[in-house]
């Protein structure tokens, strides 16, 4: 379970303060598929970065399974991200020098698994996203949709507790977007907790719950079905 309590994020630029998140409170149960939506500049990506431990909030608490993530040291946050969280970014965020298989295997190797075991698990993850036939391709040799599927494979290979996705379909055509969203739906059916930022209503509706932000505040929190 994820609990967000009194979360505030303010950016400072010299003497200028820009509040982006203003006292956010909500909780997400295990296995939920949540869309964070809102207009551009509403603070949805910033909220995702705080919950996914990629950034530090100015104040407030992020409690994941009873652990207050804001109390963790930088090294512990890194370890937490490695073992418990998975990420899918808008621009795929694959490493250009690594093949699809290596991109997926890298976090597993960092977890201490042997290279053979990591490759075996990574291969299964690639199979899962229907890219098992292209393990040796570099990101530059894959289409945008394929790169995003590799990114999903990397995010799920180590069976994370929570999968975070930041505008995962923003750079994709309709067909590729659909494939990625279908993948998320499948994962959700298997019990995967997914928190996805999107500005596309169509994909937002496919999730279980929508949290809508406006001007740094939660203005809507509803179940989709």
């Amino acid at each position, binding site marked *: 379970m994820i609990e967000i309590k009194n979360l505030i994020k303010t950016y400072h630029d010299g003497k200028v303060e820009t509040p982006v998140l203003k006292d956010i409170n909500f909780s997400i149960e295990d296995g939920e598929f949540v869309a964070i939506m809102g207009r551009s500049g509403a603070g949805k990506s910033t909220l995702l*970065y705080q919950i996914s431990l*990629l*950034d530090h909030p100015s104040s407030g608490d992020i409690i994941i399974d009873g652990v207050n993530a804001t109390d963790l040291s930088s*090294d512990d946050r*890194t*370890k*937490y*991200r*490695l*073992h418990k*969280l998975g*990420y899918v*970014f808008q621009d795929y*965020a694959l*490493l*250009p*020098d*690594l093949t699809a298989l*290596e991109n997926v295997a*890298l*976090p597993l*190797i*960092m977890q*201490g698994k042997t*290279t053979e075991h990591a490759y075996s698990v990574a291969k299964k993850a690639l199979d899962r996203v229907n890219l098992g036939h292209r393990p040796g391709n*570099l990101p530059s040799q894959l289409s945008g949709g394929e790169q995003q599927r590799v990114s999903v494979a*990397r995010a799920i290979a180590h069976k994370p507790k929570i999968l975070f996705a930041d505008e995962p379909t923003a750079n994709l055509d309709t067909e590729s977007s659909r494939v990625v969203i279908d993948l998320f739906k499948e994962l959700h059916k298997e019990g995967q907790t997914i928190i996805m930022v999107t500005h596309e209503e169509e994909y937002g509706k496919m999730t279980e719950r929508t949290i809508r932000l406006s001007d740094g505040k939660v203005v809507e929190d509803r179940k989709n079905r």
Partner: protein
Amino acid sequence: MSFVPIRVGFFLAIRQIKHASLWTTILIMFVMTLTFLNLVVINGVLVGLMQGAVTAEKNKYTGDLIISNLNQKAYIENTSGILNILNGLPQVSLLSGRYLAGGTVESGYKTKTRDSDVTESAGGVIAGIDPVKENNFSGIGGLMIEGSYLAPDDYDKILLGADLLYKYTPIDTPGLKNLKTAGVGSLVRLHIGSTTREVLIKGIVKSKVGELDQRIFMVDSQLRSIIGRDDLNLNEISVVLKPGVDPLFVKNILVKNGFDQGAKIQTYLEAQPKFLKDIAQTFSLLGNMLGSIGLVVASITIFIVIFVNAITRRKFIGILKGIGIDSRAIEYSYIFQSIFYALSGTGLGVLFLYGFLVPYVNAHPINFPFSDGIIYVTVAGTSIRVIILLITTVVAGYIPARIIVKRNTLDAILGR
């Protein structure tokens, strides 16, 4: 301590090197090779210049061991006893004995028309040699730059060291006298004590060993008759030992037999002029200083290369941290890249140095005015420089990687 970050760092480094621009990699390796050569060769040439002089002194003059008369004595006492011992030692390979006397050589007296006309003269040590033995020892016959070498039956013929002729040593200072008009084929007067002989200059010797190039050589039997030496006591014995024999071992045998009471017994190192040792040390220091500048240049080069590499890959470093890759693993990846550049650069440098440069220069020494310079490098010295270069490169690669890795993860991912 976990080895996982090292493993991941290596994993990343290999792939980054594999996919790096070929030309950039070649350029960096070339810079490292040149830096290594700068570090080793400059020092090697400077020390080798003096080493050439030291080697020439040993091969052409002292041998491994040189026995000479004590300062207060006119000759080596009990020369025959020393020769008997040396000839009986299996460690001894060659011997060459010399008789020495002080004297001058005078020219221009034939064209003198008045008593007030000044002739020219040059002073030096006159060495009476066995032409065959001396040639076997030093190869002096091959050091003739004009004329020809002495034959055992040559009479009233001499060889002049090049320093005694203005033509080869064009120095005109009040303290140094040399002959301006004499040359091969000239008749000159040789003054030894009260004896004067007219002799023919048969050849000119240039050995680049100061002691020899200031000498006048003639057949030993004639010098003995001129100086009235009716015994066989020599003034110098140069001893060449078989390869691998420590000169101190043979010296100690002679000392144990008491010969040091009547002769000065020195290894070639002990007999080296002090200025040679001083200059060798000075040049080594100079070489290290110049090499250090090269080292600084190399470390700055690596710093810039890694910094630019890390800056341009800032986003990917952010992604790595974002997906949970330990900062140390990312830093190690840059350290491994630095090590790769350092090792490949120095590896090429070592191959070039030992595979071509050193053998080539040994076969074709650099013709310096006072020595035949070689590149003096030792395995230990080269290893130390490789290690220094490696450490410098690792530090130069680690610092920029650390600077970039320490930056905020999210800012790096978003390119802020």
